[in-house]
């Protein structure tokens, strides 16, 4: 079994092991899960390292497994492989899952089921980033929904049931479009194949209309995941109601699947359709940036603020994806995906930290916490700064690359101008949040009992801090890692 299969099956094995542990022994369950999440984390980081030194010189798929026959009569194959755009996301998944598992140690209710579902979720996420067969990709894409549904529905906030089914229905609704598009592609290819690689290499030979239909179908499926405005309405519900660690996974990994799938599948596969849709994609991205930021600004709930900021930040990714002929923009999109994963993941963790203590997330209820819990304040301000794009941190690098790249190639330069306003709005809502929560007079009677962030919680955000700074200060290794793959993708997309 190759390393990519291990990334999928070790969490699955962990799930089975956890299911057989006694229910009462909560610490055994927690540490077993940590163990089984740590293995893929280490593996995926090693993969990053190994890919960087041995494979980054070529755009070809590395660590390929298969294709092995799975269902011969339907030409379904077990086919895995990674390249420069999936390796960083795998590492992100591995790391964030481990972080989330550790951050979930405070779950006391139905611990066993919680961690079993968490490991199943990880297997699905890893699978999406390594699958090279449409059927396999679809299986992983869907399999994630089930644990996610339970994680939100059982351990979530007050409106958890509504949020859980809304998330499930929304994503399944998107998936059916993908399924139709996959079937059309399958039957129009000669010989019939479900291999994503072959479809991407050959480009679509479909008549223009059908190509457009397939492109739009894939777009709907992926845009719901991203989420692109106006498909974003599941996001605030799901993010807000989900327990902390699940919000982290949602924001850090699940949203990236949408943009990853666009880069992997629909963008290089339908260049003609992409050319004609690029303007509208940029427009949707732009609306997302501004709308997300404005709505964030109006939020009273801290978690909702972070949730809507995701809509805004993923809008930058869409803008970059519309400027698909520029390597800088696409690289910026990848940076933004990773950076948003780290920053928003951390912000959700920090929101969870304060919520666990104060049992409220209302921004107006706080004030002056900076004097009471300085370390927490410092960390929170650090990530808020990263999120608003302070130079020296990953958010700045990615947004800068997106602006430079898309300004160069987009015909509508004004769009980039408006997108920059989005960064300004981002600074506005994040700074206002910092000001209202951490500065000003402190109410000792009300919040005197608040305790400082503890060691476990600090440990969960520490790696994210390091990575944010590293990417912000020295992004070159990541660039080297992705460059060949991105150039190859761009030649495919721009043909």
């Amino acid at each position, binding site marked *: 079994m190759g390393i990519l299969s291990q990334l999928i099956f070790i969490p699955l094995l962990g799930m089975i092991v956890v299911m057989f542990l006694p229910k009462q022994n909560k610490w055994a369950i927690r540490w077993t899960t940590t163990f089984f999440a740590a293995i893929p984390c280490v593996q995926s980081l090693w993969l990053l390292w190994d890919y960087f030194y041995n494979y980054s010189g070529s755009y070809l798929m590395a660590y390929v497994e298969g294709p092995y026959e799975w269902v011969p009569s339907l030409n379904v194959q077990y086919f895995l492989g990674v390249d420069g755009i999936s390796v960083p996301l795998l590492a992100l998944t591995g790391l964030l899952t481990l972080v989330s598992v550790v951050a979930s140690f405070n779950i006391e209710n139905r611990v066993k089921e919680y961690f079993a579902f968490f490991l199943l979720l990880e297997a699905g996420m890893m699978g999406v980033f390594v699958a090279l067969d449409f059927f396999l990709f679809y299986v992983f894409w869907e399999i994630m929904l089930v644990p996610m549904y339970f994680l939100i529905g059982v351990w979530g906030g007050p409106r958890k049931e509504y949020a859980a089914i809304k998330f499930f229905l929304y994503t*399944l609704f998107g998936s059916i479009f993908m399924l139709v598009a996959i079937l059309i592609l399958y039957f129009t290819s000669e010989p019939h194949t479900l291999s994503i690689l072959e479809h991407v290499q050959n480009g679509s030979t479909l008549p223009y209309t059908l190509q457009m239909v397939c492109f739009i179908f894939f777009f709907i499926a992926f845009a719901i995941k991203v989420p692109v405005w106006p498909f974003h309405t599941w996001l605030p519900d799901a993010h807000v109601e989900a327990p902390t660690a699940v919000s982290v996974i949602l924001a850090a990994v699940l949203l990236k699947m949408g943009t990853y799938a666009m880069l992997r599948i629909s963008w290089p596969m339908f260049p003609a359709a992409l050319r004609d849709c690029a303007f509208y994609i940029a427009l949707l991205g732009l609306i997302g940036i501004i709308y997300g930021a404005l709505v964030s600004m109006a939020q009273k709930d801290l978690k909702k603020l972070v949730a809507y900021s995701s809509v805004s930040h993923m809008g930058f990714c869409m803008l970059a994806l519309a400027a698909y002929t520029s390597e800088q923009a696409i690289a910026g999109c990848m940076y933004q995906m990773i950076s948003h994963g780290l920053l928003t993941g951390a912000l959700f963790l920090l929101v969870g930290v304060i919520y666990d203590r104060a049992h409220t997330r209302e921004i107006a209820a706080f004030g002056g916490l900076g004097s009471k819990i300085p370390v927490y304040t410092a960390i929170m301000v650090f990530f808020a700064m990263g999120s608003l794009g302070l130079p020296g941190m990953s958010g700045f690098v990615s947004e800068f690359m997106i602006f430079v790249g898309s300004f160069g190639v987009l015909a509508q330069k004004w769009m980039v101008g408006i997108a920059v306003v989005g960064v300004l709005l981002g600074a506005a809502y994040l700074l206002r949040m910092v000001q209202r929560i951490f500065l000003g007079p402190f109410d000792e009677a009300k919040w005197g009992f608040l305790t400082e962030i503890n060691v476990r919680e600090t440990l969960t955000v520490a790696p994210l801090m390091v990575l944010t700074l590293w990417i912000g200060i020295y992004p070159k290794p990541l660039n080297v890692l992705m460059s060949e793959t991105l150039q190859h993708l761009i030649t495919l997309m721009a043909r």
Partner: protein
Amino acid sequence: MEFQLPEYSLRLMLPEIVLFLAALAVMTFDIGTRRRSGAAVGYLAMGGLVLTGIVLASTGYGRGFGNMFFNDPLAVFFKVIFIGAAFMAIGSSFGITATKVVNHRGEYFGLIMLSTVGMMFLASSRELLSLYIGLELTTIPLFVLAAFFKDDKRSVEAGIKYLIVGAFSSALLLFGISYLYGLSGTTDLTQMQLALATKQLYTQGQMGAVLLLAIVAILAGLGFKLALPPFHQWVPDVYEGSPTPVTAFLSVGSKAAGIVAFIKIIVIGLFSFYEPLMAPNDWGIMVGVLAAAAMILGNTVAIRQSNIKRMLAYSSIAHAGYVMVGMLALNELGLASVAFYMFAYLFTNMGAFAVVTLFEDRTGSCEISAYDGLARSSPFVALSLTVFLLSLTGIPPLAGFVGKYYVFAAAIKHAGSQAGLGWLYWLVGLALLTSVFALYYYANVIKVMYFGKSPDPAGMSFNPPALAMIVIGLVGVVLFGLYPGPIIEFASHIPLSYGFLVP
């Protein structure tokens, strides 16, 4: 003219004979022990079915009794489904026979087996009359079974309703068959296919109204059996009132029998009349409309149900609609996808009903709200029901998903094969869209089981055979979801054996 005696190849009929004898043995055993047979009679019945399965496996393909009895891939595949459905229905009946039908265990199990014999004859026929007889043999025991709780008003109502509707639909079917015979001069389906096509050419389509009448009557007759709207009204009441294992058997076995009849009469017998050119005799568009109605109605009305048996009844209407989508794909995938779909449906639905039966045995309730908190009191059973419901929704990697994928793949392939079939794309789109609706009501049950906060959730009774059925269902759903290759391979012989060639 020399009269040739047909070949009596009894060996081919051995599975049916074995099962028939086993049914008689079961009934005799129950009477012989003065109705004190207990669970033994049930195990005897299951043993009889297993034996039938073994005999079926060793019988092989062939034909006999003139051209009256075929053991072709279609027959064998569906016989496996019938035997499996009967096996799982009997396996989950032990709770009922222990408490409710104590004086008629033999008849109860025997009738299920006799109905299965009818289904097996049906699957082997390639001729209208033996097909009709097989269909009657299938349904008549089911009338009795539906009314088996004779002290329960709803069960008796179910029986009467099913009897009237069943008789009416059979009459309609027979009426249609008589027209087909009149037009073609034969009851042999393969000859009829040719005769009708020739006649169509010869008369330049002047058969018009008569053939249309025949097609409509047959579609209505089979529509009742398959519960395609607008012929579905009996389904929820009969499903609700019948003993739960009988409901399960109805929803899988009897439905599969209807599907076989549909394949034989419509898809094979009227093969040449599924062409946009053949309007108004084009049965394709009619079936398409029925399928669309089934998917819309089944999936929307199910949302409102508070009784799980009624919900599953409407869901089975919807699933009949999905199967029809595969039926409309007249290519080398179509019939195979239908067969595989039913195979997956066997494990999924029988498994779900096994859970419902087990729950009803303990609590006496079929209300969805009674499942509150089941995940805490019986985690394994709740997990199983979740898996079955997700498979019914079509979430990968479960068998139900592979079935749906296969059916839709077949339909999309056919839609692209010739002009004038563009509506099939829309039908597949509708099928997918309604399967999103389906998620809502299936997930509702999961929600109640897992998110419910009942302080004292109802538990499950411990009933080894029923638990075994749940495990069989679970293994089937997961195994054939992850590794459907061999079954699909087997199923793909079906369309080939009827001349649907790979282009």
